[in-house]
């Protein structure tokens, strides 16, 4: 199994020789556009099959499989839970005494408490990857990354439109002041990941959440909640646009997280395992549709440690120990420490060092966010999936 020490890196250290890495890097960093090993264009995604609502025992579920056989299944379960405030009694006083410190943007909400706004901890995410423990760095990092954009996507401009989604996912989970839904998102990867599993998991989670239904509430106001037994009238967690609404008003959808790498001056989307192993920089960018319907909104960016930093360096001929056995002692010391001695030699693989230039980050996000860019393409593709 994989070495847990290196598991936090973008995936396991690739088993490619320095020569292979160098070849791959050169072809991916060609100035006229990269040549990818599988012939895709830089922004093209791998083909996948998707289905939703596959598990009757869950509130929502989805399965996505890549052609290479990596499959992910996401099941969403919701439980009703009592809203526990850190101090219930104090809460009352605070509400009376403080004239609602205007720390909420919309003045309509008078009580700035979890009871109204929802709490990020109500969404729990756990990722199971074969060969990893639950608390290994990779699953923890992945779930924090996806959860962060899920709870963070507050579509505040709910003016006149879906008021139900006004507080984002968090707000949707509020039943009343004392009760809320708790959402468990369990992600199951069916085989060891062949590439960094982030896009797969994110897309699957997206579809599962879209298909998630909550039973229809029959109680009103601050009553203890009870629900309609008829699953047929259950409501979607992410409400569907009513047929009467104009076609332009698109449905509010969960965010997606895209994986972008930069190699040389090129920007490459949805890298496979080999491509990510020569990346200069790896970014995970979470986006969602802007609440105004058009355009995209950036939710979060995270750098991911590129596995290229852990690769084995190639040795240029000029420094090959076996060809200079006759030379003196001090030269050998320099050769054993080649990074001090030489500038990068073309065609010889060096583990990537250093970070990302700011211009590269700008370019990466621009490619995702621009009109007609990759982000829109992905979201449109997902909207094509029948849920």
């Amino acid at each position, binding site marked *: 199994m994989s070495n847990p020490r290196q598991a936090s890196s973008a995936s396991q250290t690739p088993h490619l020789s320095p020569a292979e890495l160098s070849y791959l890097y050169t072809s991916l960093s060609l100035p006229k556009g990269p040549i990818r090993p599988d012939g895709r264009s830089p922004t093209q995604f791998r083909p996948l099959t998707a289905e939703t609502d596959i598990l009757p*025992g869950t509130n929502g579920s989805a399965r996505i499989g890549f052609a290479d056989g990596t499959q992910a*299944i996401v099941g*969403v379960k919701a439980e009703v839970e009592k809203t526990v405030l850190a101090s219930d009694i104090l809460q009352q006083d605070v509400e009376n005494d403080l004239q609602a410190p205007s720390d909420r943007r919309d003045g309509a909400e008078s009580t700035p408490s979890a009871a109204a706004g929802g709490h990020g901890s109500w969404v729990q995410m756990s990722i*199971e990857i074969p060969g990893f423990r639950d*608390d290994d760095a990779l699953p923890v990092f992945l779930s924090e990354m996806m959860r962060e954009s899920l709870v963070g996507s507050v579509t505040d401009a709910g003016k006149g439109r879906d008021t139900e989604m006004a507080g984002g996912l968090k707000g949707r989970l509020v039943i009343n002041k004392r009760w809320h839904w708790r959402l468990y998102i369990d992600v199951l990867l069916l*085989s060891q990941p062949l590439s960094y599993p982030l896009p797969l998991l994110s897309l699957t989670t997206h579809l599962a959440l879209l298909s998630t239904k909550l039973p229809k509430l029959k109680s009103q106001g601050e009553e203890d909640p009870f629900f309609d037994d008829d699953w047929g009238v259950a409501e979607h967690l992410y409400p569907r646009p009513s047929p009467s609404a104009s076609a332009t008003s698109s449905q509010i959808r969960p965010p997606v997280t895209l994986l972008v790498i930069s190699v040389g001056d090129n920007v490459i989307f949805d890298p496979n395992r080999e491509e990510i192993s020569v990346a200069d920089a790896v970014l995970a960018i979470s986006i969602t549709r802007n609440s105004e319907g058009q355009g995209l909104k950036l939710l979060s960016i995270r750098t991911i440690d590129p596995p290229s930093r852990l690769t084995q360096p190639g040795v240029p001929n000029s420094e090959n120990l076996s060809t200079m056995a006759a030379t003196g002692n001090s030269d050998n010391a320099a050769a054993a420490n080649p990074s001090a001695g030489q500038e990068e030699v073309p065609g010889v693989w060096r583990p990537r060092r250093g970070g990302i230039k700011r211009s590269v980050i700008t370019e990466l996000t621009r490619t995702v966010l621009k009109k007609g860019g990759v982000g829109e393409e992905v979201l449109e593709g997902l909207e094509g999936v029948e849920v």
Partner: protein
Amino acid sequence: MPLETSTTYPLTKLRLDGRRWNEMRVFQAQISTNPASSGSSYLAMGNTSIMCSVHGPAEGRRGEASGSAGSGGAVVDVDVNVAGFAGIDRKRRAGGSDRQSTNISTILRSAFQSHLHTYLYPHSTISIHVSVLSSDGSLLAAAINACTLALVDAGIPMPGLLCGCTAGMTGSASTPKDPREDELDPLMDLSLPEEQELPYLTIGTTTMVPVGQNNMDEDEEDGETKVAVLNMDSKVHYTYLDSLVPVAIDGCREIRELMEGVIRGSQRM
């Protein structure tokens, strides 16, 4: 008060989900579901659904290979993972596996270790990964069936299909069976509420595929059936075993026919 089989069955002669005593739930199965593995299957018995993938026979890890060098055959490695969303309530656990999945994987490992022709693959490992997506009773039986299908898909030789089924009694069956007025019926293929209420057992049987001169001899088939797995965690008076075991074996036979249909119907055959 929740409905219970032990109270409603004597009145209606129907189970809670409307089945008769010897009726199985809807059986659905598919093989070659995951191209990344050597063999894979998806199996649903009612609301119990399982995905299973097989890797290997492949070179075992260094430590294991040396340990099993004496046996000279392949090592079967089973890993059972019950998804958090599989049950009615979401299962929370602190990493790793729980008692139920460890138990199932132990039974599966010993069953398939002796069932497969492991001697054909010395110093290698056959690893089976079982993911329980939805659990609604007869989990062990369904896991046996899913593993068999995935192993067939992986092309690993075995003497016959290993099929599992559960059987239970419609009451607690704690007193000796009274042959004159016996109001308890055996049940085939239990669902989760029934499992929680009633005593039940799980049986896995295998039937040698007739070869040679017996090939055409249809009647001989039953004579070749062997019980490979028998697991029972609940308490029942021994006199009722007589009625439980045949029902479970009947279920296994039924499932075997269904599974043969699945294998024949798949495109790879």
